């Protein structure tokens, strides 16, 4: 008897008692569904966190004055000198400095205003942190050297101020009111809105993010302070060492100890991933127990089936079925039961993942992801359980004596 014949006849048998088949599969379905659901959400969350951290920059170190340090002297603040010192470090690829401020922005109707967070940028910021440019250009060194009044705004802001977002916006003016009065800035570039997701959530309360040259902003505020220096390193495996070297260097420059703090994105990703793997592992362990119980249920039903069908086995043997034919038939049936359970579990887990993601969409936007290897693992493990727990009943069936089996009532 070949595989196709066995499959056909086994499918027929499984489907002839749908209720029983479904109940038998339940343990497998629950086990697979929960693993798939948790994995899809876990992977989705992992991706979400990495993309959030990525938008801050990959392999990036942010250096600032430690915020938990209460007595910050004027001399402790970072300035262009610190920037130069850090940029000189040979383990560093790109360096950028940021000085932040705030302002209000006049919108299209020329009456309404919106809060704006001003990011004064300096150095190679476009290689570290800048959102994708749509039209125009980024802030360049010359803008800082000349302290020009140019701005890079995002898509959404362009819509709000000009009622449109296209190349024609470049060269237009925006009005920013700071504590030094209203300043006109020329739009030099338009980028994608990196905070689009958060903005839809918080609505108009979310400030417009406007990028201008750092020196321009420092002059407006009458300071030479730098809020944060960001760097990317040549070798991401060396991030911790480089971060320590940089903060030490700044402490030496200012004659302080532990005044500077380096935030390292790879550490954050690692922490998040660890948390997720612990959770996934825990749920998987519970699911494994469910699969074990499901497998025992399958074995139980297969033993019942073999007993019920003793006469059929006798008939098949009497007309020439060999042991392996009978063994194969029952093994295939048990694999169909668990395999089908696995596929159902996969579908339910996938739907469950989508459901959970929808429920959570108010807080974070997760796209549940089921990898190809997860699908293969689910199907293979459920089929494997079918073989593992089907072997014993199938061998029992195969060993039946034809005469005794035929006589069975």
């Amino acid at each position, binding site marked *: *008897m070949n595989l196709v014949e066995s499959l056909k006849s086994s499918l027929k048998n499984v489907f002839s008692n749908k209720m029983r088949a479904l109940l038998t599969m339940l343990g497998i379905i629950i086990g697979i569904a929960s693993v798939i659901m948790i994995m899809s959400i876990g992977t989705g969350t992992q991706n979400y966190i990495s993309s959030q951290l990525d938008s801050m920059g990959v392999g990036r170190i942010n250096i600032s004055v430690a915020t938990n340090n209460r007595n910050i002297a004027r001399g402790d603040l970072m300035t262009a000198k610190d920037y130069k010192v850090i940029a000189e470090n040979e383990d560093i690829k790109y360096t950028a400095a940021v000085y932040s401020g705030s302002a209000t922005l006049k919108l299209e109707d020329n009456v309404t205003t919106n809060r704006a967070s001003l990011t004064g940028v300096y150095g190679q910021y476009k290689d570290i942190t800048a959102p994708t440019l749509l039209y125009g250009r980024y802030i360049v060194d010359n803008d800082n050297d000349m302290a020009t009044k140019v701005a890079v705004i995002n898509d959404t802001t362009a819509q709000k101020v000009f009622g449109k977002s296209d190349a024609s916006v470049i060269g237009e003016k925006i009005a920013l009111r700071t504590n030094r009065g209203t300043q006109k800035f020329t739009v030099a570039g338009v980028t994608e809105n990196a905070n689009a997701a958060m903005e839809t959530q918080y609505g108009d309360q979310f400030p417009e993010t406007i990028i201008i040259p750092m020196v321009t902003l420092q002059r407006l505020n009458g300071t030479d302070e730098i809020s944060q220096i960001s760097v990317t390193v040549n070798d991401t495996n060396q991030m911790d060492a480089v971060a320590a070297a940089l903060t030490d260097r700044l402490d030496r420059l200012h004659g302080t100890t532990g005044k500077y703090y380096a935030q390292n994105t790879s550490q954050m990703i690692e922490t998040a991933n660890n948390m997720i793997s612990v959770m996934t592992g825990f749920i998987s362990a519970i699911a494994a127990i469910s699969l074990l119980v499901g497998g025992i249920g399958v074995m139980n039903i297969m033993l019942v089936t073999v007993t019920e069908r003793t006469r059929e086995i006798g008939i098949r043997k009497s007309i020439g079925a060999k042991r392996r034919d009978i063994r194969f038939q029952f093994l295939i049936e048990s694999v169909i039961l668990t395999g089908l359970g696995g596929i159902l579990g996969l579908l339910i887990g996938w739907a469950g993942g989508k459901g959970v993601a929808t429920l959570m969409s108010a807080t974070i936007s997760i796209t549940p992801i089921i990898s190809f290897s997860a699908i293969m693992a689910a199907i293979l493990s459920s089929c494997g359980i079918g073989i593992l727990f089907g072997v014993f009943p199938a061998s029992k069936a195969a060993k039946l004596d034809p005469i005794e089996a035929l006589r069975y009532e």
Partner: protein
Amino acid sequence: MGVVIQIKDLVKIYKQGSLEVEALHSVNFSVEGNEFVAIMGASGSGKSTMMNILGCLDRPTKGAYFLENMDVSQLKDDKLAEIRNRKIGFVFQSFNLLPKLSALENVELPMVYAGVPAGKRRQKALDALEKVGLTDRIKHKPNELSGGQRQRVAIARALGNAPSILLADEPTGNLDSRSGEEIMGIFQTLNRDGSTIVMVTHEPDVAAHTKRIVTFKDGSILSDKPVLNPMNAIIGSQADSGEAGSDKTSSDEAEAEEANGAEGGAIA
């Protein structure tokens, strides 16, 4: 034709705990090709025990069993299964059809295990069903068929792999006399066309259709006599009763005969 079955000093002992039942005591017996043998005897005389061994469903305790000159008395399970599949057609008193399969699928089953490809299998099954006069109702499940029809399906199934011998243990035991007569008619036709048949029966009327009667008593052969004037089964007895669908059956048989005739003519 040569010897199909040869049995020498065959002993079968059933063990039930400490109790031993000797169902066959040193039986010697042989069947030539194209014989039609009836085995008779009182209940418990060892007829079924004998048939099961002949059918390779069971092994003798002692003695030799040659099937077409090959000693099959102590073969392994799977080897016996292969012999059951290819060389033996077994017909049971209780039909033993698989209830979930159609008549046609039941007939195909031994050929499935023999690995006959699907198309060829179907054709052979249809041929076998035609030989037993069952060309309609082949898509029906066993429980939608009458006892006589079920037994005809069972015979067709036994014919599938063109066996060396057809064994039947009380094939008419569960049938009324008319259906029994039909079955005997089929056996006689098959025997006329060359089949070797050994069947068990309790009824002298049925045994009278065969060519040789072997009588068992207490696990031994009491007598072994040829039938001088075998009775002919009244073929088409069903047509006489005017049952629905039976006309078709008999006309199909006639067609089959015609086809054979035409073939013969072509050769001549």
